[in-house]
């Protein structure tokens, strides 16, 4: 009876939402930030470790809906090997895709399953929350505490 919801809940979303591959905090990390959508209760804490100016590893701890967890998990794979600038640009492109419902940008191919949120305006912020947290992690000065990011 939920076949028409498959645009939002594709198998990869259900699978990653249930059993994320990267859903743990990193033992060693050099950047981190929290994202919090207090209106809906989604929370994510993103951890990144860099080598040679590129993101070498990314993990997260999250409580939230299937869409936000799956988005964090796909984010973790998508940004490995990128510089911070490239990851931030990808976050911008992802945000546009989530609003518009699709993108022909080949670098977003692995993130395409999340483009279904565009048809559910109240759920776009679920998909973009991990990216807001990543942006906060990558742009805050070392040692500086900053406010919690939000995509609401």
């Amino acid at each position: 009876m939920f076949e028409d919801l498959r645009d939002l809940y594709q198998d990869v979303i259900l699978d990653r939402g249930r059993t994320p591959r990267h859903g743990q905090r990193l033992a060693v990390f050099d950047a981190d930030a929290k994202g919090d959508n207090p209106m809906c209760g989604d929370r994510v804490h993103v951890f990144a470790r860099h080598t040679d100016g590129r993101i070498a590893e990314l993990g997260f701890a999250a409580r939230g809906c299937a869409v936000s967890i799956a988005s964090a998990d796909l984010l973790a794979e998508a940004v490995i090997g990128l510089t911070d600038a490239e990851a931030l640009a990808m976050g911008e492109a992802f945000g546009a895709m989530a609003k518009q419902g699709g993108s022909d940008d080949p670098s977003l191919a692995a993130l395409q399953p999340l483009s279904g949120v565009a048809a559910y305006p109240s759920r776009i912020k679920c998909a973009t929350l991990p990216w807001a947290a990543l942006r906060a992690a990558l742009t805050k000065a070392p040692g500086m505490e900053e406010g919690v990011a939000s995509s609401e």
Partner: protein
Amino acid sequence: MNAIRPFDIEAIRADFPILGEKIRGKDLVFLDSGASAQKPRVVMEAMLHAMQHQYANVHRGLHWMSERTTEAYEAARDAAARLMNAADRREIVITHSSTEAFNLVAHSFGRGVLKPGQAVVISQMEHHANLVPWQMLRDAHGIELRVAPITDAGELDMAGLEALLTDGKVGLVSITHMSNVLGTYTQAERIVQLAHAYGAKVMLDGSQAIVHRRVDVQALDVDFYAWTGHKLYGPTGIGILYAKRELLEAMPPFMGGGDMISSVSFERSRWAEVPHKFEAGTPAILEGIGLRAAIEYVEAIGFDAIGAHEASLTEHALSRLSAIEGLTVIGRAQDRGGVISFTLAGAHAHDVATLLDRQGIAVRAGHHCAEPLMRRLGLDSTARATFGLYTTHAEIDALADTLDRIRGFFA
């Protein structure tokens, strides 16, 4: 007032045009009345009639339109006084929301009557509207804010409340009459007796309770009682604050402006008599006219019939929902009504709400403007189904059947 009519659910549903709407081809199953209720045709017609035939500003015009509109608007005050069994219509302050009512009391009673060093007591299950204004009062005026505990069942811990009162510093206890998350009715009479015994005034948040039960402010002997129009099948933008007259007399105004003064010069102003002292600016005229129609609509059905229908719905819902594997109903108060929060194992509340929505079933998901309560319960969010007088047993069956399938979807 109309004559009491028999409780005929089909006739009642026919009074609410929106209930005939389809959502993506499916019948609307509206289980979010606790957030805002749908409106019966009589409310729409009353507002439309005013705009088409009888509208001007109130309380100031000397012309026919203004006089007639003032009468129609002021009838809302009489209707609210009658609904709550207030002794005097001057004890009804018309606000723009229940949130404004709390801010009014926090400002005018909190700063104007309470003294720094005194305390205000709320509970762990308050809506943000009955929390944030007191925090602002605390920070601005040196009033201590105390929080009475709730039990694991989701009831107010009366011994815990009393423990907060014993030092005699508490000037006001402000507690919900019915939780918007747990559906718990608090023991309002006992709260009032207890607080009064320790010299504290009592404010009740009645936005949920007033919809479901007869509220008698004189029998309760409550000092302040606030509620909002739009949950009682009336329009948005209007709320009611009941307050005992001697308290209103003792309190300074909240907002300044037109309508709340008797005379103004550049040197000083004199305040209008209560309740107008607390009603600055042009009021929500059309909303008042709509609210009166809503009150009369509910009174014509009668709270005995509404209460019996909603008790039956609640019992049916608790029975159907608790039979679903992995579903947990949050709170198990002895005295509870048609506000049911739940979690479903393996599915986040937002995913649940989205899937329900695809079947035309509207529920709320999130923290329900009660974040501290969510933390107390160890939850981030719940889904919440709330019932109105137009809710049917078949709609609850649709909810339960769909939740059972959602469980399979995420399994």
